[in-house]
Each structure stands twice: as structure tokens, then as C-alpha cells.
């Protein structure tokens, strides 16, 4: 770092000086006065002279505060833990207060740019020190000092003061960038503290509740996707190691709070989330797909003779805030796809579909799942538009015999069992609350079942639905109405199939669902 000679000593002296001021009765009585006196001292030591020196000061200070915590941490156990914590926080919290005062008072009162630039600088420095420490200490890395700095600074800068309220959205954006840089895949030793920060009641409330026009939603969705991407490889195994189980259970708690308080957020971003959640993570995916707008009343799926296509909301197009069409790559494939949807030629497009979707021959990793999901949603979305243009609405008749259904039927027939399972999952991921996607894809699944030319297709449709139903609640409304229609409507001859009676447990399951319907 080539720090100028004496800077380290100066920094240590100033930091020590500030901690004493902060905890002194005068400092407590009038923090702003104490702060301005201290800034004068910083000036006298030339710390604030250049941007470079300020940066060095914060890096050195952060390193010193972190080292102090590392010295205390071994004593942070048992009944002495509270005392040891308070000793560490005696210094850390003072340092945070200094940062927050410098941010608040840098530049003119209404000059938010200087404040936010300084905040970004400091957050970046702390993140840099964390990552370097993470590299150096490896499995001896300790998250505590960094978590303390980040959360206490967030609490300080969210105080109800006009200066701070004016820069709150930029503050959230700065924190979003920092947490994205420190996402678990990059700093796995910080993963638990990271989720603690991301789900802190104040951060969550600001990001999803208090910030106007839902401007924080996109950022928060990105952070959740960072978390799901990190968890995915560990969740693909049947048996979860304890550290994974704890992080997974913590994630479920956060999602339950979102489902209860911000269901529209889950509705809008369900596609992006389900795109990265592994297919075997059934309950977590159901939790996201079960979200529905708070002003909506869902009809009981078990209502006898429920006329789904008569529901007012069934023709409403749901908001999908993920650019799924852009996920259809390469561009040449998208061009061919659009051409086929428009002209229903060439037929070779259908026979080439599978090769576009397959990426390896390794079992369990054969297919490009994001491309599969995007293709299904895009084709379904185009199909609804196409049917509407003819002045019709999606139903078992209007969805048939179209370029869109050619593609779905071809996928159902041509893919191997793994590919078909993923394809049917992509469709089932659209079975949510009453909306035009739920309706179209529910009809599509039932149509594929009715028109199947092999029983394997029907068996896998049943498998995909049943595995989502036997898991603990919640269950998406669209999933329930589709399954009930499948087992109730004699058109599908559901009960005649061998796979329905393949084992007593399976048969009992179907009968219990059937009884609930009757």
C-alpha cells in the first residue's frame, strides 16, 4: 500500500483519540461539537487533505478495528461473551459513529453527492478489507467485526433525520452494491452474517416497504438470487449438511416474512427465483409460487364445479419483472424460434429443439435449465397473445393446433426423461394464483396429458404435479386446480393408468386428494 511514513501511527493516535471522545460525557452530551473538534484534529494531521489520504485512513482504521476484534474473539464464549462483546463494540461502534458523522457532514447539507461518494468509498474499503481477510484467514476468518460495522452504520444512517432521509435511496443502493460484492459465492465465510444483514428488519423494511415506487425491489430480488445461486449446489444433494440446513432454514424464514408481508414482490420476481432454485427444492419453490396479491381472494380449489375460466382475474396478465425473452440464446435460435412461431415452418426447427437445449451428457446436468424455463414462458406468452389476437381466450380448444403447441408437444415427445421432467417443471412453475399464465399453462399440461402418445409422458406429468403436492404446505392455487381437474375429469381416464396403482403409498395419496375433492 506504500503508506506514507508515520500515517499508521497518526491513524492509531486519531482513532484512539476519537474513541475516548465518543465515550466521554462531553462527547455524549454534544456529539456534534465533539465531532467538529475532532475533525479539526484530523485536519491538523493532514488526513483530510487528499482523497488518497482519506482512503488510507479508513483502510488502516478498519484494519485496526478488525485486529482488535480478532484479539477479543477467543474470549467471546460462555457467560463472559456479553462483556467481551461490549468491549469490542466499545471501539467498533465509536468508529462507526465517526464514519456516519463524516458522511452526514461532508459537503454542504444539501449536497448528497459528496455524502454518498464518501459512503461508497468507506463501504468499498470495508468490503476490500473483508475479502482480503477472508483470503488470508481462510477457515479462521471471523465475520463479526464486519457485520457489526455494516449493521451499525446502517442503523446510524437510517436515523430519522432530514439530511439522511434525503439520501436514503442512494444509501440503499450503496449497501446493495456492497452486499452483492460480498455475496456468499464470493465470501462464503461471511454467508451467515450476509443473510443476517440482508434480512435485517430495518434493511428489509426500507428495501421492500418504505422506499417509494418499489424502487428497492429489483435490488432485493438480485440479493435473493445471489443467495439461491449459492445454495443451489448444496441443495441438489438429497442429504443436507448441518451448515447448509441452517442457512436453508434461515432462507425459508426470510421467504415466509416476504410471503406474509410482500407477496406481490414474490409474484413479480417468481420467475427469476425459480430459475435458480434447484428442481428438487420443492417446498421453497412452492412457497414462492404460492404468493398472490393481497387484494385477491382465491376461490377454494376444492369448490365443486369451479369454473376457472369464469374467474374475473383469470385473464389478467401477471407482471413478470425478469427479462426472460433475453435469456433465449443464442440470438440465432431466438430468430428461428420467432420465425417458426410466425410461419409454423420449417419443421426441422422442431427436430433441432432438443439439441439447442442439451448442454452435456452428464446425468443430472444434461440440460440448460434457464433456457428451458425461458423457452416455455416465452412460447406460452406468445401463444396467449396469438389466441387473444383472434378474439379468443385460452381454453382446451383454442390452445391446440398451433405453432406454440407444436413446440410443447414436440418437447414432450422428443426429450428423454430428464429433459421432459425439466420441461414439465418449467410449465408447472407457472401454476400460481388466478392469472392468464396460470390458466394457459394449466390447460397446456392437461392437453399434453390428454394427447400424449406414450404413457411415460402422462406418468411424468403426474410425477411433477404429485411431488409438489405431497410436500408440506403451502401449495400454489394453480397447482391444486390442475391436479383436481386431472383426477376428476373422466376425459383424462386418470385412474386407468398403471402408474396410479404402482404402489400402496401412491394409491393412498391419490385417494386422499380425491376424497378432499369430493
Amino acid at each position: 500500500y506504500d503508506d506514507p511514513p508515520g500515517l499508521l501511527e497518526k491513524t492509531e493516535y486519531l482513532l484512539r483519540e476519537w474513541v475516548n471522545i465518543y465515550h466521554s460525557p462531553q462527547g455524549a452530551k454534544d456529539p456534534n461539537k465533539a465531532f467538529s473538534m475532532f475533525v479539526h484534529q484530523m485536519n491538523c494531521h493532514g488526513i483530510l487533505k487528499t482523497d488518497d489520504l482519506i482512503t488510507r485512513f479508513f483502510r488502516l482504521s478498519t484494519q485496526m478495528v478488525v485486529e482488535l476484534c480478532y484479539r477479543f474473539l477467543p474470549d467471546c464464549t460462555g457467560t463472559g461473551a456479553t462483556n467481551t462483546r461490549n468491549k469490542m463494540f466499545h471501539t467498533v461502534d465509536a468508529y462507526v459513529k465517526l464514519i456516519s458523522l463524516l458522511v452526514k457532514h461532508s459537503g454542504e447539507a444539501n449536497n448528497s453527492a459528496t455524502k454518498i461518494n464518501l459512503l461508497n468509498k468507506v463501504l468499498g474499503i470495508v468490503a476490500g478489507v473483508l475479502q482480503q481477510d477472508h483470503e488470508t484467514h481462510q477457515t479462521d476468518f471471523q465475520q463479526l467485526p464486519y457485520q457489526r460495522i455494516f449493521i451499525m452504520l446502517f442503523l446510524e444512517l437510517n436515523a430519522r433525520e432530514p439530511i439522511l432521509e434525503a439520501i436514503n435511496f442512494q444509501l440503499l443502493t450503496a449497501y446493495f452494491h456492497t452486499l452483492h460484492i460480498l455475496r456468499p459465492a464470493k465470501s462464503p465465510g461471511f454467508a451467515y452474517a450476509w443473510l443476517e444483514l440482508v434480512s435485517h428488519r430495518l434493511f428489509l423494511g426500507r428495501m421492500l416497504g418504505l422506499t417509494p415506487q418499489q424502487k428497492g425491489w429489483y435490488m432485493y430480488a438480485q440479493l435473493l438470487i445471489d443467495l439461491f445461486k449459492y445454495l443451489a449446489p448444496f441443495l441438489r444433494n438429497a442429504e443436507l449438511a448441518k451448515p447448509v440446513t441452517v442457512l436453508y432454514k434461515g432462507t425459508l424464514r426470510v421467504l415466509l416474512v416476504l410471503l406474509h408481508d410482500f407477496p406481490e414482490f414474490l409474484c413479480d420476481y417468481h420467475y427469476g427465483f425459480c430459475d435458480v432454485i434447484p428442481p428438487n427444492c420443492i417446498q421453497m419453490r412452492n412457497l414462492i409460487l404460492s404468493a398472490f396479491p393481497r387484494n385477491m381472494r382465491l376461490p377454494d380449489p376444492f369448490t365443486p364445479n369451479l369454473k376457472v375460466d369464469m374467474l374475473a382475474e383469470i385473464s389478467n396478465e401477471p407482471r413478470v419483472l425478469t427479462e426472460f425473452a433475453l435469456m433465449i440464446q443464442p440470438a440465432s435460435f431466438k430468430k428461428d424460434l420467432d420465425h417458426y412461431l410466425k410461419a409454423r415452418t420449417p419443421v426441422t426447427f422442431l427436430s433441432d429443439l432438443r439439441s439447442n437445449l442439451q448442454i452435456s451428457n452428464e446425468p443430472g446436468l444434461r440440460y440448460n435449465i434457464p433456457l428451458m424455463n425461458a423457452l416455455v414462458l416465452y412460447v406460452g406468452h406468445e401463444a396467449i397473445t396469438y389466441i387473444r389476437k383472434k378474439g379468443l381466450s385460452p381454453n382446451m380448444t383454442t390452445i391446440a393446433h398451433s405453432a406454440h403447441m407444436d413446440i410443447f408437444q414436440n418437447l414432450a415427445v422428443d426429450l428423454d426423461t430428464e429433459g421432459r421432467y425439466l420441461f414439465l417443471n418449467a410449465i408447472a412453475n407457472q401454476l400460481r394464483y388466478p392469472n392468464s399464465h396460470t390458466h394457459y399453462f394449466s390447460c397446456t399440461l392437461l392437453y399434453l396429458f390428454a394427447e400424449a402418445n406414450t404413457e411415460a409422458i402422462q406418468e411424468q406429468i403426474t410425477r411433477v404435479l404429485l411431488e409438489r403436492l405431497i410436500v408440506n404446505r403451502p401449495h400454489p392455487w394453480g397447482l391444486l386446480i390442475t391436479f383436481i381437474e386431472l383426477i376428476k375429469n373422466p376425459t383424462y381416464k386418470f385412474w386407468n393408468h398403471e402408474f396410479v396403482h404402482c404402489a400402496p403409498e401412491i394409491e393412498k395419496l391419490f385417494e386422499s386428494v380425491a376424497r378432499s375433492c369430493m
Partner: protein
Amino acid sequence: MVKDQFGMVGLLTFIRAAETDPNLVSLALGQDLTALGLNLNSPDNLYPTFGGPWAETPCRAQDIDFSVPPEYIINHSIRDKLAQLKLTRYKEDLLFFMYYTNAGDLLQLAAAAELYSREWRYHMEEKVWITQAPGCGVIEKTSTYERGTYYFFDAQNWRKVIKEFYLDYSKLENQPTLP
């Protein structure tokens, strides 16, 4: 039927594994999400008192930062001069307050121990604190139980209520021990 894990047989494998090794299928069959310490039927938003991803219960009132007028905050200059906590000096009212508002904390245990030393007894099934009611004698007393009229502390209405009890001594907690 489909032979690999992508058909009904694959699902049946999970269902059967659940009977022998539930941990193996925790993802496939999920868990009871109402048992994660969140009141999912709450009419109010959960996030303002969300205790965090590892918390089994919501935040308690004292865990949540409120921006209060500065004069409400214990002033630095007198903070270290304040008398230390001494439960023996407090009236029952405050002891019950500390017991009910410090669930899962050492303070709850300390308040319980102090109440015990003042002849209150905790009924482990009824989950209430009970003490003798002056002037109301015991109607029946044996080596395993007694019956009579006692006070119990009604936390809903925050007052002592007189009531007849059949007290099975095995249901009364012994002296609470502090770690």
C-alpha cells in the same frame, strides 16, 4: 413405467425414504413452516419484529431500536452511577414484568428465582405463578398434593386473582437454578 428417478418410481423412493430417514428427504417433503417461530396468521406485518434468519421467536420490545427523544436515553454521565440490578429490592409487579418480557433470557430465570424465594410457585402445566392467599387456609393437604384457595398471577389483566386450586406437588417447579 419410467425406470429412472424422473418418474413415479423416483417419487416412491423418496416417500419410502421418508419413513426410514426423514433427514434424507428434508427438501423433497419439506418441513412444517408454521413451526419456524413466525406468526403467519398475524394481521400485522412480520418484518418490523423479525428476529432474523436464525431466531426462533420474534424480537421482544426491548430488542428493537426506536428513535426516542434524547432525554429518554440514559445519559452517559450518570450511566455508570446507576445502581446495579438487584431483584431483591423490587416489588412483585416488576419481577413479573421481567419474567414475562425476557423470555429466553437470564433475566427471566433470575426473576423466577426471586419469585420462588418470595413463596411464589410456578405451575408447570397451568403455566401460572401461584402463592398462598393470606387468611385462606388449605382445605386438604397430603404428602403429594394440597387443595385450597390461592392467588395466581393473571398476566392478561396484570393482577393477582384468588382461585381454588388442586395442587399436585409434582407439577410445581422446584427452586429455579441460575447458570
